[in-house]
């Protein structure tokens, strides 16, 4: 079931993918492409040099000041404030000339004991010893997060506006219907790992930061380009940082947030700024969250080889232990019945099916399948191109499924050291009704020397699917996939798409199917 071998080969150097039309991916040369890109209002380019970066490191100012002899009490108070209990113990142990011997010895012993215990804990969950920046980079859905110019991207679920979080910790909001581009900055807005707009709301944007969660309220009619930090709600909970993932409920009422340092997942009622921690033993933290589009389930992966699927009516969960590594990424089918996920260290995509008992009957957990099925194998495949051999495949960084359930984008990590193993986006055609099917579509490539870092589908593109990709160069491009949606109609009313659209060739589907449920 090796899947990539059936794909059309990658484009030769200098060609970039433009769109899908007539059931095939069209490409263009770079110059042609650039002209096209620059004419489109939503394609953006953030050169790295244009960002004012600040080198803020924590407690860096301490070393710049001379040592000042304070009384033991003052130093202890300062140590308690800065370093907590361990800081206090450290201070007492170090100032052994001023304190009674028994005190310094006992605090030294306590400190040693604490360190031994925390190292033991750290050996169980190695991620606990990382710095918070490293942790964000490790667990982010963005490829090579710490080096990214665009660190997070979010389309608004109902309108054509989006938010972009940049390397300099600012967030910009682009709206084609508005001339102003508000820039959001906040004292606490550091190391943004994820942004997401609140559904059924025009204003609220949730931002996952290093130490807290911010919810901005940006009035779309306002002409202000720099909303004040008073427009942001700060949500924080002791021990719940750094936050690597957030997810709004599709009904817009709740927000969940996850931190690898906290075994509890927080469920926030944003308006009243109250959070309920949902604690479960095992896993050592929560890294990635994804709320199913129908609102019934939440995927929560942990840093260990274990992930959970919560049902959102009574907030109970199913445990899914993995064999090899942690769950790296996941995405839901539009009706919320199927979950695709990938595991770190493996090159396959798994699927889980949830056949819900009618909601309303209060069942403990939804009855799911007993084991996940492998639906695609993306192990390394060599393609012969005019420019030489290119190896595509390997580990998967993230998954994205378009809202009609017909295109699945897979961001492959590649190998940054080897030139012939680029990071690349592989796109599959999918079908969820009447049976689940996976077919090859093609690779999405950008300008030479750039690699895709982050991708997201537009939530309500009228003429098929629209994939937005953020590249390592700082460019954001949008790739339309024109097709006639055959699946479930859009929620709400979109009417029939008006663009002249190419006819699909159903013969292709029959010939090249990679996975159908009939096989498994």
């Amino acid at each position, binding site marked *: 079931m090796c899947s990539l071998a059936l794909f059309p080969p990658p484009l030769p150097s200098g060609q970039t993918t433009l769109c899908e039309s007539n059931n095939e991916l069209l490409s263009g040369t770079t110059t042609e492409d650039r002209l096209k890109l620059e004419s489109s209002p939503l394609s953006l380019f953030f050169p790295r040099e244009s960002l004012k970066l600040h080198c803020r490191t924590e407690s860096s100012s301490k070393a710049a000041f001379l040592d000042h002899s304070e009384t033991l009490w003052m130093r202890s108070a300062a140590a308690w404030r800065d370093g907590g209990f361990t800081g206090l113990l450290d201070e007492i142990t170090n100032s052994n000339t001023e304190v009674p011997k028994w005190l310094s010895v006992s605090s030294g012993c306590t400190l040693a004991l604490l360190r031994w215990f925390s190292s033991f804990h750290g050996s169980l969950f190695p991620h606990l010893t990382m710095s918070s920046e490293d942790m964000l980079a490790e667990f982010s859905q963005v490829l090579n997060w710490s080096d990214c110019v665009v660190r997070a991207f979010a389309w608004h679920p109902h*309108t054509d506006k989006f938010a972009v979080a940049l390397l300099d910790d600012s967030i910009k909001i682009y709206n084609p219907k508005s001339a102003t581009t508000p820039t959001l900055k906040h004292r606490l807005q550091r190391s943004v790992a994820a942004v997401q707009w609140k559904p*059924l*709301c025009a204003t609220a944007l949730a931002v996952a930061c290093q130490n807290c969660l911010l919810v901005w309220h940006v009035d779309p009619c306002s002409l202000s380009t720099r909303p004040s930090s008073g427009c942001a709600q700060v949500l924080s909970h002791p021990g719940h940082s750094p936050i690597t993932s957030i997810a709004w409920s599709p009904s817009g009422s709740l927000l969940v947030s996850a931190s690898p340092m906290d075994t509890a997942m927080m469920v926030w*009622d944003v*308006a009243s700024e*109250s959070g309920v*921690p949902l604690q479960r033993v095992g896993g050592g933290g929560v890294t990635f969250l994804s709320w199913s589009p129908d609102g019934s389930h939440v995927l929560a992966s942990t840093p260990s080889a274990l992930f959970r699927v919560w049902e959102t009516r009574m907030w109970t969960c199913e445990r899914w232990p993995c064999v090899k590594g942690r769950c790296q990424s996941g995405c839901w089918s539009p009706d919320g019945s199927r979950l695709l996920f990938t595991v770190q260290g493996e090159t396959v995509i798994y699927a889980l099916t949830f056949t819900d008992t*009618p909601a309303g009957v209060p069942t403990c957990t939804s009855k799911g399948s007993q084991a996940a099925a492998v639906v695609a194998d993306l192990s390394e495949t060599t393609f012969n191109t005019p420019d030489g051999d290119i190896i595509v495949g390997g580990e998967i960084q993230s998954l994205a499924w378009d809202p009609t359930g017909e295109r699945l984008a897979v961001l492959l990590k590649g190998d940054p050291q080897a030139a012939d193993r680029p990071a690349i986006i592989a796109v599959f055609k999918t079908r969820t009704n009447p049976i689940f099917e996976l077919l090859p579509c093609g690779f999405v490539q950008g300008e030479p020397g750039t690699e895709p870092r982050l991708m997201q589908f537009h939530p309500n593109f009228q003429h098929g699917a629209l994939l937005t990709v953020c590249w390592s160069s700082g460019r954001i491009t949008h790739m339309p996939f024109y097709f006639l949606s055959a699946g479930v109609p859009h929620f709400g009313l979109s009417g029939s798409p008006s663009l002249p659209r190419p006819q699909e060739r159903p013969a292709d589907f029959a010939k090249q199917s990679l996975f159908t449920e009939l096989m498994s």
Partner: protein
Amino acid sequence: MYLMMTDCSVQVIFWRAVASIAWAVLLLPPITAVFVIISRFSLLHPIQAVSECLSFLTSASAIFSFILLCGVIIMVGFLNLEYYTVIPTIACSKIALLGQLLHPRQFVNSLGHCIMGIIVAWCCAITVGGRYETIADPCAQGDGSPQMCLNEYHLILLLAGAFVGFSHSLLGVIYNMNYVSFHTVQQYKYLRFKGSLSLVLKCSATQALYSVRNYIVVYFFLGKWSLSVHPLDSIAGLLDLSLLYHLWISASFLLFTWHLTLLLFRVFVTEVYSFPVQSSFTEDAHQCLPTVLTDKQPMILKFLALLDLALLSQHSPSRRSEVFSLSQPGGHPHNWNAISKECLSLLADLTQRLIAYHDTVATNGRAKSLSTGSERKTSSESSVPFILSVSPLTAPFTPDLDSPFASPALRRLTAPMDQCSPWFGTVQSPHIMRRVPKLWSTSTGEKSQALFADSQAHIWALEGLSYLVQSSFSEDQFGVVQTALPSILSCMLGLQEAVDRHFKLPHASSKPVRSASSMGDSTHKTLRFALRATLKTSIYRITTTFGNHLNAVKMSAEHRKRLQQFLEYKE
């Protein structure tokens, strides 16, 4: 009261309370055992202490005191049932709070807690043993004859129990501890209980610490007992570490058992109850959702019914179909009519309330600003920094209508001083005069809280209506919802307008300070924000579902304009 009523829906509440009390009593043995171990344990003789604990636990006095403790827990449970409320009483001024504290009903409550505190403290004294065990000690008088003297260690523990019980009851009023709030996140009872347990333990320990501190101060000044053999009202007598430890442990034990009973009560009472939407038997009709919704009393049932409505509209297609169904025979959508009518009347009621409040504030402010213009000028001379901190809009909108002392003359007098109402408490006034009006001045924030005190009901009504309308798009076969769509939309848009206007009042949108470590529930302080967010989401839920079809719905031009904002995602 509850036993008298035969309605079985009402009995549900009673039996839930009984179940919560039963659990509290069942949890009492392990808690008491832990308390015995903690209070008697000594580092130097661990084995001896454990064996002493075991022998004590099997003694007759231990069993007797345990029975007493069970009685106290049952009593506390029934007091919870008697005094709980789902709509918090918000005191808008200090005088109103004082009125609440001095209310005869509250007095009975305090007295009850005092007595129960003494009983628990007596049990603690028996448990801790040693010097605390008896009230009278044999002591030698001057002439050598043995005589019984007062054992002050025993007494101090008993009085501590009374004090902690009393302060618990007072704090209950101040922090609205009898207010039962409903959670947005539904969880099973056991998980909710487990999740809150550590918080309860922390709260009890800290509150016990503060209570003991206050008690020691009071005792130092008032505790003069001429009969005592070891007088304790000296600094040295009170700074006995072991005494302080035992006082704190006993107070923590007392508060923990009571708070646990309260927690269990809250968890059990607020559990979702599924009402049948319709019944085929007429004698059961009074238990059905539409009937319970329209009933006024008791409030908790109405709340549970609204919660059930919000959940069924969101999660349960089969029950929704019952709501949309037609009566047989007759073909009338009685269920939908009753539910939508009740929800709309709730929302209209809130809209009216907000408009009336806004009007009084506006007219009052205008009159006042005219009459007090000159006085403000004079007072501004004396306290310049003070006036500078106040925006010119603030003063006209400061309402003190409800205060019992608001005669026109007095109002004119206090108007410039309203600026030192609690919202300006951070500015320290040099004049003692300025502190006086604090007693009866009301703050807009608290008035706003009081206006939205029962808004949990409105939130569920909005959610229920909007989800039902949303699912009617595909599920409503007979079009019963369509007929009500214009009135639902205009009701929501009218409320939206009133809420928007209300939030433009000064301080209505300022966030309250949260108190994290207290058993009191501060949910009611943020209900107005939750309502505003739910209202917007609900309107968006309808507009995204129906889209441009809404242009065919009849409504006033003003509402159409507002709706257009929503259709364009500009609200």
